[in-house]
């Protein structure tokens, strides 16, 4: 039986999002005991997972006070932290650090000290960042600098842990019987209220952590009104237990002549509500992931283009992207969203025309985001770039070549030749110079990049390998030189494999006959 520890030092949304990780781990290791380590301030989100064997917490607030200085010594904080982690122990078969931050990286180094039982990032004993595998290296070395995220962090971990894309294990949530009964009673009355025809209840969560992610008051009124006016939809407003949201709901309800059902609940209560509604329409990521865990149908609204590809929910969930700058009147968008809701609850395909400023996407674990409808050329280009990046990375790290890359293979092969020539030049330079200095190695590494700075599988692989080799460097220049030479030889072989795949896929005999040239180059190295 495997003992697995998930480290997640993030907020509610990310904790719910990690349900995919728990499901994947249970799918892969059905008898595993899974434990969770998070900050005290986020633990109530983790309490919803019923399949966890145990929950450990770090009291960041207390540590923050102890680290303020003054009468408190760092030694107090050290003692507190060490005591917290004493219960966690070191006997883990696998530690999955999904936080991807420096705090969790140091924590992983501590818990997996002198072992290789981790996934994610940690620090090596010489203080450099270590990656458990190529996917994690790519996410940390390259993805962080990209404007568009071709893979979400959870997808990266699914790749890293080699999960099946068709997960079988359902993550189970803690439910309160009391909440289940009261929710059921309320909803039966709601259905009775409009009993003449089939009515689908649409729960709306229209507030998020920031105002640019939230629906404005006017947008909220129009959305709710359109759902009210729809022949087979009925709206239900969800609010979190905060005074701001209560005020927002009261004002909305006053404007809608107190006809709106408003539900305020904590996470456990929310589970019961989400199980009972027919669809969740949400701008908030936390509740989106909570709904996704229990397969509640959902439609996500996004107002911020930059966030589009970052945290997708389960396979098959649609997203409406609203670009406020391109929207003159919100009414057509509100109508479009209500129509989308109606189609989703009735399992109809989403073939509606998107009004100006609105775009419709669908997400699947295997293919990422597909663009269903848009009137915007800009969005089309953004999505094409997203797909191309995705294909490049998958090809570089998993050798899966999509037709999209075959179409541009001439350019790719040109890039291959450029990088290969850079590798050869670097190898010669380092081999000939008997007294290579640290800066010489550093310069040689930097000169490996091709002049063309577009995304490609070769550049992806090069960046991943560079990140990995640099983390192995120490203060010993001679040893670094050896490591670098070894890196160049391996990179050359890997690149040759990639190139060969492109040539084979193309079926170009003329390119295959060039292999002897390649062999000559290898001999030179």
């Amino acid at each position, binding site marked *: 039986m495997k003992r697995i520890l998930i480290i997640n030092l993030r907020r509610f949304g990310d904790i719910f999002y990690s349900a995919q990780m728990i499901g994947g781990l249970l799918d892969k290791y059905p008898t595993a005991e899974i434990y969770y380590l998070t900050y005290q301030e986020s633990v109530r989100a983790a309490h919803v997972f019923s399949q966890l064997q145990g929950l450990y917490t770090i009291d*960041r607030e207390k540590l*923050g006070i102890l680290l303020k200085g*003054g*009468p408190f010594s760092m*030694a107090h904080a050290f003692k507190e932290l060490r005591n917290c982690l004493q219960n966690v122990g070191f006997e883990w078969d696998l530690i999955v650090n999904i936080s991807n931050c420096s705090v969790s990286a140091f924590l992983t180094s501590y818990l997996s000290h002198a072992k290789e039982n981790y996934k994610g990032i940690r620090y090596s004993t010489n203080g450099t960042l270590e990656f458990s595998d190529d996917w994690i290296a790519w996410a940390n070395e390259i993805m962080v600098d990209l404007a568009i995220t071709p893979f979400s962090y959870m997808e990266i971990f699914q790749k890293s842990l080699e999960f099946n894309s068709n997960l079988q294990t359902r993550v189970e949530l803690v439910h309160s019987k009391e909440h289940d009964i009261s929710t059921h009673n309320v909803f039966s009355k709601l259905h009775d209220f409009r009993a003449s025809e089939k009515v689908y209840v649409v729960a709306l969560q229209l507030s998020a952590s920031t105002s640019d992610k939230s629906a404005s008051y006017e947008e909220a009124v129009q959305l709710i009104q359109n759902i009210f006016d729809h022949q087979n939809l009925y709206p239900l407003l969800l609010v979190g237990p905060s005074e701001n949201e209560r005020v927002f709901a009261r004002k909305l309800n006053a404007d809608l002549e107190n006809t709106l059902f408003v539900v305020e609940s904590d996470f456990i209560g929310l589970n019961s509500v989400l199980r009972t509604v027919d669809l969740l329409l949400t701008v908030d990521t936390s509740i989106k992931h909570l709904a996704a865990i229990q397969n509640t149908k959902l439609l996500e609204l996004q107002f911020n283009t930059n966030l589009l590809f970052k945290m997708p929910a389960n396979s098959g969930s649609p997203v409406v992207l609203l670009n406020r700058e391109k929207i003159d009147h919100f009414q057509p968008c509100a109508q479009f969203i209500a129509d989308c809701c109606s189609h989703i609850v009735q399992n109809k395909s989403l073939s509606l025309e998107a009004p100006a400023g609105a775009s419709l996407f669908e997400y699947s674990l295997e293919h990422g985001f597909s663009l269903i409808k848009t009137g915007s050329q800009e969005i089309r280009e953004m999505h094409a770039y997203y797909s191309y990046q995705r294909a490049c990375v998958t090809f570089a790290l998993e050798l899966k070549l999509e037709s999209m890359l075959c179409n541009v293979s001439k350019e790719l092969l040109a890039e291959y030749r450029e990088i290969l020539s850079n590798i050869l030049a670097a190898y010669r330079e380092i081999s000939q110079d008997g007294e290579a200095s640290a800066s010489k190695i550093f310069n040689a590494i930097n000169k490996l990049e091709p002049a063309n700075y577009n995304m490609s599988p070769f550049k992806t692989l090069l960046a991943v390998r560079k990140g990995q080799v640099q983390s192995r460097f120490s203060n010993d220049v001679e040893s670094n030189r050896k490591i670098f030479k070894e890196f160049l030889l391996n990179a050359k072989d890997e690149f040759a494999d990639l190139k060969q795949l492109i040539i084979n896929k193309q079926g170009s005999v003329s390119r295959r006959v060039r292999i002897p040239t390649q062999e000559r180059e290898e001999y030179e190295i």
Partner: protein
Amino acid sequence: MYQQFQNQNSSLQIAYSRSNLPVPIWRGVQLHSIYDPIKEAENFITSAFAPLREKKNLLIFGLGFGYHIASLLKKLNEEGLQTTVMVIEPEEEIYRKFLEIIGPGSFKIIAGKSVRDLYRDQNFIDFLCKKPGIIRHPASFNLHVEYFKELLSYRATNTVAELREICELPKNSELDCLLGNFAPDTHLFEIAKYEVMEQDFFLMEMLNAISATVKEGRA
């Protein structure tokens, strides 16, 4: 006017008030009213407690014979507040006599510890982390003004020596041996920059990183 308990060898004397309640006198200074200590305590708590009503934890400087604390607990009870009270008393003898004459109360007391030892006391540190409101019992505070000033202005050194003391490391434990490589006055931030990161040093770095996130959060 009032009965008086005297022990020539002690700094502590016990007098009895008009209302026949024991009043400690430390080196000639009486710590409660000699007329009506309960009335005095109630008046004091009414004004001292008002600005601290929202606090879930209260730290009292000075025990005396606890009339002010009894008055505070009564007020908390009347208002239905679940507030935790901790008392710091510099003189252990006063505390012992309090136990003997008045008896233990439903609050935590730390007595007779030096300021330095107080900051080595985990219960005290845990309590301070809860950001308690502070109530100064005027007579006790004035009597031990230097002690309480030192308590309020204490600064940790953040050195290897302090880490050893606070963590009470067993001799020859792994961390104790590691720390043996450093001079006792080495700052703890420095040991994390050691060339090879030992297991426990990762925790030091982790704390540095947490400190940065907490500062970001505050900003």
